[in-house]
């Protein structure tokens, strides 16, 4: 997919910060995050557990339980309108037609006591005021779109009667019911086997190219990003550390954490290369506990390139051309010794 630079973004997040007020401490889950998603593109958010990627996704439409969560600052512009300023009733109207979600666990997202057909139809009744028959006809159409086999029969099936892959297809059908402009897929295939993962991701990218929906794909799997996303953002400890076109970042990462992630995963086909087995590159240490605002770069304690300034000051994003930014004082040195 190609875009012109003048395209106004579908979604623009500016300086978003999310806190969780716990009993004795405050967790700084997302810290001053800014990014843009353009219409029709797949924008991947990558990071390890606890980096704030899911919290960011849920904050877009205020789907977090508040309290304990609190959006302490920032704006979320969707087609120019700041969602953070809208009342709950307006937000509810946007959930579905504007932005809809597909989550990791299809079993816990579906209502176990409601037939599949009615769950898909529900969105059409709510948002378009369709009557029962119209909505069911639309459900049938959607089930065919997501390639649920034997659609007619499945309409009256309950979630437990479906396989994990079929449940995820059902979730996608529900998410697409109102033809959203932005689809947020939060680890949509993490609970699935690889052959089913491939089918679901292929389905999502096919549907996306047919409907022109923008997509935020949240994942911990860089290989999934490599195959399915146009642009990506890497998060660490609630901060954006790198952002840019997928090809460029995979080719020349400018943040030591991104490079670390790329080198830590074993690659398929590695045994076919000549020479002895190499050990995987480790990222030493563990992720920080986010109970205080970070002084300096949050990755500095684990970073082999860190110098004094990294521990004192938060690095600002440095540009590496063509929309590629990395928040690192030493971005030029990343991967230099290779």
């Amino acid at each position, binding site marked *: 997919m190609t875009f012109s630079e003048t395209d106004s973004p579908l979604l623009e997040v500016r300086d978003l910060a999310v806190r969780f007020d716990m009993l004795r401490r405050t967790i700084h889950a997302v810290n001053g995050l800014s990014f843009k998603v353009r219409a029709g593109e797949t924008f991947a958010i990558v990071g*390890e*557990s606890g980096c704030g990627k899911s919290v960011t996704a849920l904050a877009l439409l205020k789907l977090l339980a508040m309290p304990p969560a609190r959006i302490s600052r920032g704006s979320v512009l969707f087609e120019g309108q700041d969602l953070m300023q809208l009342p709950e009733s307006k937000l509810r109207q946007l959930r579905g037609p504007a932005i809809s979600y597909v989550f990791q666990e299809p079993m816990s997202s579906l209502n176990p006591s409601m037939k599949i057909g009615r769950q898909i139809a529900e969105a059409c009744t709510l948002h378009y005021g369709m009557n029962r028959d119209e909505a069911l006809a639309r459900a049938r159409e959607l089930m065919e779109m997501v390639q649920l086999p034997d659609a007619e029969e499945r309409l009256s099936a309950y979630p437990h009667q479906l*396989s994990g*892959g*079929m449940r995820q297809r059902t979730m996608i059908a529900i998410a697409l019911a109102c033809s959203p402009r932005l689809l947020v897929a939060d680890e949509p295939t993490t609970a699935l*086997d*690889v*052959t*089913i*993962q*491939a*089918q679901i*991701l*292929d389905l999502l990218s096919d549907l996306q190219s047919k409907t022109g929906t923008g997509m935020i794909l949240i994942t*911990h*799997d*860089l*290989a*999934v990003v*490599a*195959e*399915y996303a146009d642009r990506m953002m890497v998060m660490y400890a609630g901060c954006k550390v790198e952002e840019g076109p997928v*090809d460029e970042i*995979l080719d020349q990462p400018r943040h030591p954490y991104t490079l*670390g*992630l*790329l080198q*830590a*995963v*074993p*690659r*398929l*086909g*590695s*045994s*076919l290369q000549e020479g002895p*087995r190499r*050990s*995987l*590159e*480790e*990222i030493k240490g*563990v992720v920080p506990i986010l109970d205080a605002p970070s002084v300096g770069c949050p990755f500095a304690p684990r970073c082999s390139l860190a110098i004094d300034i990294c521990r004192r000051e938060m690095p600002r994003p440095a540009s590496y051309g063509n929309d590629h930014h990395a928040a690192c004082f030493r971005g030029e040195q990343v991967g230099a010794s290779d």
Partner: protein
Amino acid sequence: MSKHFDVRRGAFGTSHAKVRAVDDVSFQIHRGETLGLVGESGCGKSTIAKLIACLHRPTAGTVRLQGVPISRLTDRELRRYRSRVQMVFQDPYSSLNPRMTAGEIVGEPIREHGGLSARKRRKQVAELFQRVGLAPELATNYPDAFSGGQRQRIGLARALALRPQLIVADEPVSALDVSVQAQVINLMVRLKRETGVAYLFVSHDLAVVEHISDRVAVMYLGQLVELAPRRRIFGNPRHPYTEMLMQSVPTLDRRSRSKQLVVGEVPSPFDPPTGCRYRTRCPLAVPMCSSSTPILRQVAEGHQVACHVRAPGTAS
């Protein structure tokens, strides 16, 4: 003959519903080698792991350790078997007793089997902690004070406590983040080099299995479909299921996949297809595949495939 571990005709059925979770599977694990076992959920790989760790009894067939079938062992001999075959589990959060300190968890098998004095035991626990890269001072902490990666190190230290010959590791890194996953994989490789322990490494992650294994076995719906040294299986997979598995793994190289190859879902193990169980998804299936079950046949040195088309038999 080298000494080896041998699983023969293990057919496992639960009593509530007859699922032939593992059907007619035979393979060997050699001293000091890592055998990777891959397949999708429900293919029976965890059942195999538990059969070998003697947490399940096979319905038919036997597991042999160095030629001795475990079904013939007396209770005392079985205790010894369990000290020589240890297990590491997937979930580092539920597999450690939250009421025991890390040191007690690691020292428990020594206490049960070794009968060392408390002082000697503490010394051995400290050594084990160092071996897996944990500070011995942490031994007095409870599991909830440790991260996922550290917990998996505790699990490995405990498994190593009795100097086993085989560690059965069931998805040991699947619950970990990639940066921590690399630490644990490297640790497992180092421990094998230092202690000569063999691994049965069960995983759904092909790239991880390729990285760590010497040989790889692929399972589908309770049966072994292919077994080969890792370079052969990743360089020249012969079973159509192995091919599809490899096609479906996304890679960083952004190579274009032949997507049409990845189709269908695993049928129910309650009612598996007749003949070759993969035939319902197989692009190569011929009529014979529904009438007779293919057996593993050698296609090259150490490379076995169960497929009527790719590894045809002379007569059947």
